[in-house]
């Protein structure tokens, strides 16, 4: 069995130094890798840690931690993460809501609804490698002081 502990503790360290945005909505972006350790009960425990060495083919986890540091609720919160071009999208990280994805940066939806146009004008179903951007929308206003986290798995091309 594989357990995935909350990663908030890991992120706390980076959040302290990394919040660049001024304003009530603070978002911290992290690129992490899985660290697997065998627990005493025979299960495998996965922690997310800062990568020391990432090489092509390695799985990386992009984590966006958000928090409303203001005194009022924030409505229509949207987090948008264009992928670095060396990164291939794979899936939502377990425990995270699935993002809407886009293959052109304009149209967002679930991967199954997207198509890619080829040079000859024909289209085909989009695959994870076609994803260029991911996006999450909060369905309800983010109350003052509340926070959350989105994460997706990707592979270094």
């Amino acid at each position: 069995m594989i357990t995935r502990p909350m990663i908030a503790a890991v992120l706390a360290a980076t959040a302290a130094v990394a919040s660049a945005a001024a304003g009530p909505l603070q978002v911290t972006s992290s690129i992490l890798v899985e660290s697997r350790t065998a627990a005493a009960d025979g299960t495998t425990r996965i922690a997310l840690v800062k990568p020391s060495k990432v090489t092509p083919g390695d799985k990386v986890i992009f984590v966006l931690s958000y928090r409303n540091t203001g005194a009022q609720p924030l409505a229509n919160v949207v987090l948008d993460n264009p992928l670095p071009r060396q990164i291939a999208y794979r899936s939502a990280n377990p425990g995270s809501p699935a993002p809407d994805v886009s293959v052109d940066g304009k149209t967002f939806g679930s991967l199954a609804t997207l198509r890619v146009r080829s040079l000859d004008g024909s289209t085909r179903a989009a695959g994870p490698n076609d994803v260029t951007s991911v996006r999450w929308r909060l369905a309800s206003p983010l109350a003052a002081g509340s926070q959350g986290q989105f994460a997706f798995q990707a592979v270094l091309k």
Partner: protein
Amino acid sequence: MVAATLAHPAFAQTAFAQTAIAVPGRPAVGTVAGTSIVNTAGLRYDLDGTSRSTVSNTVTIVVAERLDVALVRDDHDAVVVGPEPTIIPLTLTNLDNGNESFTLVATVSPGGIALRTLVIDADGDGLYDPVRDLAPVDGRTPVLAPGQSIKLLAILAATSAAPVTAPVTATLTVTAQSTTGSGTAGATYAQAGDGGSDAVVGLTGASASVAIPLSTGPAGPSLFKSQSVRAADGSQNAVRDSVITYTLEARFAGAVTGARIADPIPLGTVFVPGSLTLDGAPLSDAADGDAGRFDATNGAQTGAQTGTAQTGVAQGPGIVVALGQVAAASVHTVQFKARIQ
């Protein structure tokens, strides 16, 4: 990482701006070592009825250099070495996602055949040009770009004229290792990679080796066919319903791939179902998972075949046994039975 990269930081920067460029004929080695992966998220929200937008922090990771290499022989024929130089072409490929040079070591053991030299085939034509094709300086190749291949030529000669009846066998071993480091996959050389990245030993161990069996004896495979007849009365008379057991013994001096033994069923006889064996183990008649089959319709040609070379021209229903990869100095025996009509 290699010295040449350090000496030209401006050039290196240019290279690092690129990522995973597909060069025709080169293996994909992934994002180039030293590339910075930069991520920033954008965010929007409404506060007091006003839409606002801002960005997250920017996080950067630097792609490490994965040390990997491949070394393969270009052909797979048995190598017979005489007093005249014999050339064995090899291909070395930098599977690293960074620039790398490789240390080359070549040895022949136990002896009887000597390695004259191991050179880099400057024009890649597989032919030895003593003027242009030179041994690597200090046993190291030039710096190879990610995915780049070069041809090597091992040049061998027998040290004395061994009699054909007692050929000398030896093994040529050529090894290439990443100069940055090699060893257990996952081993890390801090900041030794391109662009100051860490270098990490990949799945190949950053080392590749080929062992090539050599012989001073006859080339290629040979096939000996014999038969024995057993009649219903226990005699060896070749009469109707007598069963002929055919034995095909294939001898391979050197290692080969794609070896295949085929033999047609003689006219006037019919194949005895289920009688095909390879080295004593039964093979089914169907064209299925095992190495052998009986082909009732299509022409089988007699011979032990490797690659495109084959002997014999007879056609008709026959047996086919695919040996595939065959070790040097090995013997394989195929048997089948046919009934006289």
